[in-house]
């Protein structure tokens, strides 16, 4: 990347950074001016202090919860993709499974968190991985099916005119067509998996895991400490999301260029 490119990209990020800093400053000053109690809404500086104070435990929590989220993400995305491919391949499977999948995606999966703890034990990463994987599965599957099947009819006729077989059509038309849909699902999935992991921990987990940390310290009325874990949960979600965005940039450079309206 040349210098002009770096500068242009930096210029693109600048407004977001400025807004973020302004929000922090407003947050800090407003709460100070109106003397809001820190158990209601702590100032950023107080949260940062709490974060630094207990950094060793919090870091352990980030690693633990992050493992749950990432593990659930990988398993859920893999299974959702496989199910999507199978569903798109067999029309009868599609007619039966897609309505079921759409219906099933409205199930509050978090309600199963206590059950998964009963299966694997609270200290294990497996209960939250299962929850995260389940939450990720449906959007990935539905988007994969959509991308594989919503192909231009004329493109299918074109392939037919070449006497292309089903595998050729899958490889050269359906899968490339599905990739933008799949990456959209991946972005949704990253944030869902972090939510699944953190909220799943509310029902049980090791003391240092972010979800338990939050519930424990709110119970102790140590709100700034709880806030530190909340901020880290957000950071974890944002990091996973950005990871998906970067992966998409590398995998589908043409799609980025197209969206940017480059010519």
């Amino acid at each position: 990347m040349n210098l002009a490119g770096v500068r242009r990209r930096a210029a693109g990020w600048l407004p977001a950074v400025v807004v973020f800093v302004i929000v922090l400053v407003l947050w800090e000053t407003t709460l100070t001016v109106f003397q809001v109690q820190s158990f209601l809404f702590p100032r950023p500086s107080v949260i940062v202090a709490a974060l630094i104070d207990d950094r060793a435990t919090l870091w352990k929590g980030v690693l633990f919860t992050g493992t749950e989220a990432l593990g659930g993400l990988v398993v859920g995305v893999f299974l959702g993709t496989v199910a999507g491919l199978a569903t798109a391949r067999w029309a009868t499977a599609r007619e039966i499974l897609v309505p079921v999948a759409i219906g099933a995606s409205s199930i509050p999966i978090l309600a199963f968190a206590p059950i998964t703890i009963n299966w694997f034990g609270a200290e294990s990463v497996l209960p939250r991985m299962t929850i995260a994987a389940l939450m990720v599965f449906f959007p990935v599957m539905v988007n994969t099916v959509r991308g594989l099947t919503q192909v231009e009819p004329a493109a299918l006729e074109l392939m037919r005119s070449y006497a292309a077989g089903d595998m050729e059509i899958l490889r050269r038309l359906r899968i490339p067509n599905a990739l933008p849909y799949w990456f959209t699902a991946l972005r949704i999935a990253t944030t869902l998996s972090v939510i699944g992991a953190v909220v799943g921990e509310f029902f049980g987990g090791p003391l240092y895991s972010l979800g338990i940390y939050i519930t424990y310290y709110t119970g102790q009325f140590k709100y700034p400490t709880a806030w530190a874990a909340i901020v880290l949960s957000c950071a974890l979600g944002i990091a996973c999301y950005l990871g998906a965005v970067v992966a998409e940039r590398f995998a589908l450079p043409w799609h980025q260029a197209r969206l940017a309206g480059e010519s």
Partner: protein
Amino acid sequence: MTDSQPTQSPSDRPARPVVAIAGAGKTFGTGHTAVTALQGIDLAIGSGEFVSLIGPSGCGKSTLLRLIGDLTGPTTGEIRVNDKPARQARLDRDYGMVFQAPVLMDWRTIARNIELPLEIMGFPKEERARRSAELLRLVELEGFQHLHPWQLSGGMQQRVAIARALAFDPKLLLMDEPFGALDEMTRERMNLELMRIWGRTGTTVVFVTHSIPEAVFLSTRVVVMSARPGRVSRIVDIDLPQPRTVDTRELERYFELVTAVREALRQPDAQSGGQADLDDVGAARIRAEGIA
């Protein structure tokens, strides 16, 4: 009209036409909701011909083209391409197809869009690169090979689609209103380009259009169809000199033939199955002038 080339009459067309359609009919749906799109179509297209199918919307001209390409099957009758059933011809990759939309793949560069059929047909990489470079020259898009489809204008995209259809050297080109979405100026330029390409490749072309001037300018024969049910109402031989150039559109004979096709479209059943000859055209002109 002494400078015009002799017209092929049905008798001196090759014994084995590239496309042979016998009693073909196509009905969509069943029972009382059934719609007969085509009925009793007989048509033979010889090697190297440029045949346009023209008619009002709903006359089944696109359906007829899709029958030739085996993109849909006939309800009755038989379609043979290169002396074999249409289905076998499709499986043998005997024809290239161009649709109204370019149907290019956004994730592929221009060069790789042209190479798509070659990849499917298992051509080696060097051969693919050689052919796509050659075709980019033919459609005058050198230097655009690394761009993606959306970075090209509509006319350029359609040129890529033509290059793609020609990539594997099919002896038959099926074109379904390929310039229908283009503006008049671009369309006329594309017509000239197509004539140049046709002159160089010697491909047999079946071309669906709803533009009378376009059909007359391009074709060696124009098949005029009528609607409900779709059938061939008349075939007009276009005896304009080859090669067709910008000057062709200014020949008196060109206007005569445009009038003849227009008359045939207006009176679908008056001279069913008849061949246009000078008397018919003359009569048409007299009628036209009488009205004017």
